[in-house]
Structure formats: C-alpha cells, structure tokens
C-alpha cells in the first residue's frame, strides 16, 4: 500500500517530505517484491495471478531503469530545444484559446487559483471530479500544442505514465486477487482442495 500512499500523499498537502515518501515507496516495493516472490513460489507463474507478479517485476525493473539510466537522459534535455527560440507563430492562436478555456474553467474549479500556476491535485479530483477531468483534458491539449513532451522522445515522456498505469493495474489486480481468494476460495482452488491459506477455511478443518 505504500506506493499508493506515496502517490496520494504527494498529491495532497499531507506530505511533509515527498522525497521520503518516494524512498518509502521504493523500499516497500522491494520488500513487497520479496514477500510476494515467496508467496508466488508456492504457485505457478503462468497463471492468472502470475500476471500480477509479472507486472510487479515490470514495475521494479522499470523503476530501477528509470532511476539509474534515464536520469542522465533527463539531465541532457537541458539545452536540447534550440528551435524553441526561433521565430514562429505556429500555435499561438490555438494556445490562447486553450488558455482562455482553462481560465474560464478554473473560475469554477478553484476561483482563488491563478491559471498561470495552477494544476489540479487530489483535493480537486475529489471535490470536483468532472471539472478536474475537463481541466486535465485542456492541460493535455495545451501540452500537445506546446510539444515539449513530444520532443523529449517516447522513452522519457512515456515511462512515468506507463509506470503509473502498470501500478494501477497491479493494485487493481491485487484487490481482485484478495477479494477472490477471500470470498471465492472454491473458484480459486478450482479442482484442487482448499488449503489452509484460503481465508475461507480459517477456523475450519482442512
């Protein structure tokens, strides 16, 4: 749960030190990986829950690769966009429209905020989910028009999104897994007998 808490904490004002949460998410993930590996050792990797394990392996490997190898690529983004300084009026009109739309929407989403400095966080997502979603779409539209992310290359621009997506899938899978083994032990066991570790058997003789 620590990675989830990290993700939520850094998007809310509750976190005093997001880097510590980051470290906690790394440590917890590694510990979780060890425990889950032990857990998985009892079963088969080429099974439905085995997909979760592969997702976990992917998350761990991707996280390490990003921290160890992509860091330098991030730093080398500095000074890589010289064409941004040359004269072009390419998308100014469209951008202006998006910015104006953002400002209009922001007046409803967070009237005190300045569009120039604002991006929605967990509080906005909880209190105004639809407005937040619409705002996020405008942000994405602006980002596409600016094109900075695209120019960084697919690896850099996509790794984090992929990481979040994989983590979301993993977490969802875990929830499903827990619910299934807890409440549908017979289904999980299939043709096999229900072992002691199925919660449904606790307190009963196996």
């Amino acid at each position, binding site marked *: 749960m620590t990675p989830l808490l990290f993700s939520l904490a*850094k*998007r*809310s*004002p509750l*976190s005093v*030190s*997001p*880097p510590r*949460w*980051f470290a906690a998410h790394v440590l917890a993930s590694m510990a979780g990986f060890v425990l889950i590996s032990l857990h998985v050792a009892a079963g088969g990797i080429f099974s439905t829950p085995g997909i979760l394990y592969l997702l976990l392996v992917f998350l761990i490997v991707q996280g390490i690769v990003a*921290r160890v190898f*992509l*860091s*330098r690529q*991030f*730093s*080398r*983004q*500095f*000074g*890589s*966009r*010289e064409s*941004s*300084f*040359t*004269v*072009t*009026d*390419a*998308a*100014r009109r469209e*951008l*202006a429209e998006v*910015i104006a739309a953002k400002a209009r929407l922001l007046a409803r989403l967070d009237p005190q905020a300045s*569009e*120039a*400095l*604002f*991006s929605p*966080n*967990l*509080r906005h997502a909880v209190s105004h989910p639809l407005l937040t979603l619409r705002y996020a779409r405008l*942000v994405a539209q602006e*980002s596409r028009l*600016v*094109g*900075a*992310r695209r120019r*960084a290359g697919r690896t*850099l*621009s996509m790794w*984090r999104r992929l990481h979040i997506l994989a983590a979301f899938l993993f977490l969802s899978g875990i929830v499903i897994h827990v619910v299934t083994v807890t409440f549908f032990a017979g289904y999980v066991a299939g043709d096999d007998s229900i072992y002691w570790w199925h919660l449904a058997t606790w307190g009963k003789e196996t």
Partner: protein
Amino acid sequence: MSQICLSIDLERCTGCKSCEAACKQVNGLGPDEYRNKVMWLGDPSLPELDFLTVTCQQCERPACLRACPVVPKALRKDPNTGVVSVDESLCTGCGECVLACPYGAMGYDPVDNHAVKCDLCAPRRARGEMPACASVCPTRAITFGKREDLLNLAHEADKPVRDHDHFLQGPATLYLDRSLDAGRTTPRDPLADKHPPAVQGAPLSGTAPTSKWVQIPYRKVDDLQPDEVKPGGCNICFNGCTLKFGMKDGEVVQILGNDEDPVFQGRICAKSQMTLQLYRNPSRLTHPLKRRGPPGSETFERVSWDEALDDIADRLKAIRERDGSEALAIHMGTRTGVLNIMGFVPMFTQMWGTPNFLTTEPFCDASKVVALELTLGSTCQPNIYTPEDIGSAELHVYFGDNQAETRPVNFGMVNDWRLRRGAGMVVIDPRLTATASKADRWLAIRPGTDMALALGLIHEIFCQGWHDLSFCEQWVQGWEVWRDFIQEQGYTIDWASDLTGLDAALIRQLARDIALADGCMIFASRGINQHSNGTQANRTLMFLAAITGNWGRRGGGYFNVASEPDWGRVQIPEEHRSPVDRPALGNSPRQWMQGMLEGAPYAVRGLITGNNPAAHWPDRQRVQEAFRSLDLLVHMDLFFNETSALADYVLPAATGIEKGGISRLAEDRRIVWNDRLMDPPGEAHSDHWFWIELGKRLGYQSVLQDRYKDPAVFWDEVMRQATPSLKGVTMKRLTSTPYRWVRIPVADEAAPEPDTLYMEGTTAFGCESGKRFPTPSGRLEFWTPTIEAKFRSLGLSSLPHFYTEAEANSGHPRVVPDDRPAEVSPFFHSPTLADTVSLQASTGDDGTEWDTQLVTGRPTASHFHSWTHYFWQAQEMWPDLYCQIHPDKAGPRGIRDGEPLVVESPRGRLEARAWVTSGIHPDVIFIPIGWDTLQPFQPWGSVNELTDGTLDPVSHQTNLKLHRCRVMAARNS
C-alpha cells in the same frame, strides 16, 4: 511585482561558456547538471555561427511549475521578483518539469535525482551580488536587472528584442538580436534551422568523471561561502585576468573575477574558473617517479626527491663530461611561469653552460618578436585595452587572430566598445571562428597568404594616395624603399586576389577602410606568426599600420599577442658563469632533433622539460624517436602525459597559487601577481624549487639561493632588477592594489603607469630625449642598411618578397635551405646557428594525393593546450578531438557530422570527429591542438602526428598553419 531577469545579447555572446563555469561552481553543480548552457549553433550549408545561452526563462506562466505533481509544489514563483525556483526538499525527481519546459531550460541532477534550475543565484542576490553568470561574462552579453529597465536599455541601444514566446508562457529572459541593418525590415531569423554540431554533444567514447574528480565546490550545496577572499591572477593565458580566490580551510573553493579591477571589472573566461578542478585533481603528479622499464613502457617507481635529484645531477655531470655542457637542452613552457623561464632557468643555464634553452616562443610568436625588435626596437607594444585607446578605434581588423576564443575577455571588451561606438570589424581567417562570427565581414583567406593580402592592401593604399604621408616622412625609416619595391614587384590587388582567393573588390574596400579609418587596430596572432614567412608577414602588416599612421596613437596600432617587456638577462657573478663554447643549435626545439638523433652539428644528450613536447611539438614521431635516444630526459609537470611516458624522471610540479609569483603576463603590458595561497598536492614543488635544489647538487647554491624559493624575494631582488622597464614593479607596488597588477614600463616605484606608448611628442622608455620609438633612429625601421645586411647574411632581403609554405603548392616562392653549414644568426640575442636559405619556386597544385590543407590551432575557449583536458567540465563542454571540414569536401567522401574521420599526411595518420561546417575555406580542414593519448576522459591522438613544422629562416618560428593532407571517412579507411 517587479520582474527581474537576465538579458542575453546574442550579438555580444561569443560562446565562451564562462557563464556555465560560473554557474556550476557557485551553485555546486556536477557533471550533466545544468542551470545554463551555451549552445553553438550552425547550419552546415551556411557560413554562419551563432551562440545561444539557454537558461530558465522565469516565465510568467511557468510550464515546469504547472507540471509539478507534488502538493505543495516543489517549484514556486516568487510573487515579488517573478523568479521561479525549485525546493529540492520537496522534489521527488519525477522529471515532469523537465519534460514540460518548452525551452529545454529545466535541469536535472542525475545523481541525487531532483530538478535543478536557475533561480538567478538567489543566495548571491540575498548578499547584494548579481547572478554569477552575469558577473563573469567576458563580453557583457549577459546583464541582470529589472526586466523593465533592461527593456529600456535595449530600446535605447536600438537592439531588437527577440520574440520567443511561441508557447504563451511569458518568458521573462530577454534575448537581444543583432542590430538591424538600415533598410532591412524583415531579416531572416539568424537562429532558424541551426543546431549544435555533433561534437558539442556527448562524446563518442571515453570515461565519465566519477566522484573522485568532482570535488568541492562541485556537487556541494551547503556552506559554499569562502572564509576569505584573496586577489590574484589567472595563470593560464595571456589575458592575465584578475581573480578573486575564495578560500576555505586552506583550500580554494571559488574563483571569480576581480570586480575591483578597473579594466576587467570581474570579467573572466571559463578556464580561470575551471582551475578549481586543477588544484586537487586526482590525475596530478604527487611524487617523483623513476622509470624502470624501457622508454614508453610507463613502468615507473616512486622515489624520493633526494634520490631523483642526486641521480639527475650525477647523470648531467656524466653528459657534460662526455659531450660538453651544451649537450643539455632545457625547454620550459609558459605554464611554468615567468619567474621560471625568465629567471631561474636562465640563471641555471649560465652556470651550467648551455645555450640550448628555449621556451614555447618558437611555436607561438618568435616571428613576431624578431619583427618587433627590427621595426620597433622593442617588444613593448603601444596599445592597451581601455575605452580611450583600443576602445576608441574606428575599425578593428583581425589577421589570423581568433581573439574571441583565445583571449575571450579582451575580445569581449573590444566588441563591446565597438558595438557601442559603431566601429567596424573585419576578420581575415580561413575559418569562421567565434571572432569572425562577430565581425561585419569575414574574409576566408587561403592559409599562408596573409602577407600577400597585406602587400596588396599596401599597394592599393599607395596607388590611391591614401597613406599618411606626414607620418611616413617623419616616423617611418625606409618607407619609400618598401613602397617602390612593392610597386616594382606588382603586388597589386588582383595579384593578391589570385593568391588569397579573396574577391578583389573586397580587398580594395578593406584597403580603403583601413586607410581612411580614424584609428584602425590591426590585430595579428598565431595565424600570422606560425608560418615560415612569419617574420616577413609580421613586418608587412606592421608596415601597413605604419603607412596609415596607426602607430603610437590611441585607437590605432598593430597588436600581436602578447606585449612583453624587453627582458634583460638575469645576471650572475662572473666567477659562477660557465663558458659556452658552441652556439645554440637554433631558436627552435625542432633544431635539437638532429643533435639528439645524429649528434650533428653537436650532440644533445639530455633534456629537462615541462609541458608535453612529445605530443605537442611538430613531427611527433620524430620527436618521440629523439626522446627515446636521450641519455637523460627529465619531465616536470602537473600531469602524466606522453612526454612523461618517455622520461627517465617524472617530477611533480606546483602551479599558480600553489607556488605564487608571476605566472603569465597580460598581453597589454600588465604584470599580474599571485600570492602563494595553498600547498601543492603531495610532494609537488614549484619549478623554482627544483632549479634551486638541483643547483645545490651542482654547486650553485650561492647564486640560486634557498631564500629565492620565496617568489616575492626572487622578484624583488633578482628579476625586476634585470629589466629596466620592470624596476618600478616592486612587490610593495604590486600588492598595494586590490587587483594586483602594475602596467609597465615603470623605471621606479614612484613612476606613473604609462598609458599608450610612443605617442607623438613623447620619448620612448629608456631612450634619449626626442626618440619617439626605441629604435636606433627613433623611427619605425623597415629598411636600413643594417637590417638589410642581417637578412642578406641568411640569403634573404629585408624587402617584402612574398614567399609562403611549400605546402601551399601555389607556384610561388618558398624557402629552401642551402647546403652551406649553418652560421650564427644576426637576429638573436645570443649566438645561435641558422641555416642560410634561398627562395625557390614551389610546385603548383597537382590536386591529387595530398589535396587538402591542414590548419592547426587553439580549440574553443574552454580549452588551453593540455591541462584543461584534465578538467572534467572542460571535457564536458568540448570532449572530442574534432576536425572542421567543409560540406563540399565532406560530402563526396561520405563524411557525416559527428562521425569519425581519418586524416593522413606524409608524416602520419590521425582520427578525429567530423564537424561539417561551411564556416571554413573549402580547401582547408582545421584540427585543434591539445589532445593526447594519455588524457583521462577522452584521449585522442595529437594533431602533431600530421605536422612537419618547417622553420621561418629568420626567427625559426615553426609552420603549424599549413600542411598537406588527405581526409576520408573512418569507415572507408
């Protein structure tokens, strides 16, 4: 809110990267960690070069800030100043801000994984100081202040402010474009479709700097402030920039410009600052080493100084016993310092009895020295870098002088003054250098033909009657003889145009501009000096300046790097002087090779040297062969290099503020003093210490006294006493100013520092009254019977016969040595052998085997010879050995930008990375000096694998600017 920001003038920026160096040291950044970065931009199809300093734009709508997913955000915008800063304690290193910044101006720490960005040096601003980049900028391209004020200044200066708000982020940083020419309303964007050359990016291979290289103050964020600040000077180049060394616990932790210096006002280049990476560099030699294996085997063992010095002394005595005292040669470069090369070594050589002592002068400017001594009677050049003198010129013409990259601070001042005054600038160079990129006109001359251009200009000026007749008649000895000779020879504009490859109309325009300008500064440097016609080319350019009245006036003159005092010989008591029975083998180490390899005219069996001659003398293979043949090779230096590998003893040297003294002379007659501020690493010692200790073992201790190990004592008691123009430069006077320099000549401590020299109505220093110039006649001397006789003794004439390198293959004359035995030259201060020569026609260009002309020279401003290659940041700026090549030459050979290519000459073969650019003459390639195969990060071969180094018969200056070669893609070789 009152937005503060930087204003970056693209017309002034020369791409020196001083701002990058300042940023990293002040903000404790490490490799690959940027808050600013200077990009060189070009389009291979266009002869243009531009520079762009990328830094945070302090946007009104910062995309980085909005992209930050953390709450509260790790990035914040100051409501009062508009500065966007990052709170590293909140940053998780997700990199979203880096991806979001459309300007590529968001940095990232790849070690600690967090965002890094420019906050306009918030801690410095809190102390009332300006951002470090603006404080050091040599060209004043970067200025800092309130945006509104900076905008007003730009408008007042009629500078167009670049509109780069394409993303509607509201960038605050101002970029000022080149002023619009009259009538041009819609100029093409000079930065459009331009990109950095591949060689400026990541290296092809090599070693990345590890933590052992990246020491304080880099990658250290806490407590960077020094405890005390000491004034001094940079010990790298002739710019002689004044510095403030920030010291903490006995270590230097900060090097910035001295803002109290009335001339430089804090300007410095990147090199000065990167000497922070010198003093505790892990590659420094720290103990004496003795070779155990064969030369070149790199098998050494550590020995004590006593053991090394005792054995060196014994082996020197054996050499003297067998081959005579002249069999010892000594070569000491300017790295070792003025006190060493002008004081300690000359004293040692007088006691030992060898005439074979040379500095780097034969490779740098011997031809200029001889030309100045003949013409002016002094190496003290008249002009100085002040707004009233050089800054008041109406025209600046650079012949073979890439001042922007070799002396960035001086060029920065010149360009600043000339832009303020609207003065012109013309650069004559086969390459579109950083200097040329700033000029109004770049004339891409063929290498080795500058003298022809000067002759054509002179011919035209006389033909048009544009010469300053009054000045000629009063102050130029022999001008009619030169005028008549040039006219008789038919050195016309068209003749010059054929040879130089320059358009005749452009030459004609240049002649007019030079002649009619109210003050023309003619700058020359290695592009003129480093040729076998170096002396005559220098004299011809001096004549051009003379006939246009540009001598001894403010804002007009001939200036060739660097101005030096007329050194007197440091005297030793007669009873300690050893007789020298044989003249010096020549005024170039190239003439030592025959002595080493063949024992002719007499044997050289021992060499004591600094620097890196095994890689950086021409004809490298022969040099290495010669070094292997020696009975004793002692190498004293900072780092283990190719010369060390061949040495019998490798001795660790101290440098700069580790030893104190006068390391370099500033090029406009300023003597810059350094105190000794810190201990050298390990057992390293100053070169001074070495000569004194070696002297003790040879019985010289009563002359080379122990107390002279204190450079202040040696300067006051010995050095300044030997040279009349330095007598007034006392230690008291040197240390009495907050900027630690005194301008010469000064006869005594109370004498005022002189301004421009040789002004009308003045008497030259040390001359009898009325002698405006320090020649025998008191006039500038171009033709006198005495001068003519000197040239005749070598088989030449003092008149400006045009000749050039044989490698020009132009069909024009070249110098060919006669068969007669060498005789003592009349051009040097002590007996020195010189070949007699004759001029013979060279062959024409057959256009086949060796179809390309190779020019060598200094690389970009962040490098200086070998030693900057041990600085991780200099390597980060320019890592690989490169070869500039024109697309017309590269294309047919399948050579692509950034890929390896191979260059072959009759002497050898070399690999480098291609830099395809139209900013070079199509027949020419350029490869810089300084790389060496033993350097720690990106080792490459030395360009001297390809050079031969034919000598100027007069000065023995070595040709390093024109060699024949051929070039091919590495994959095809």
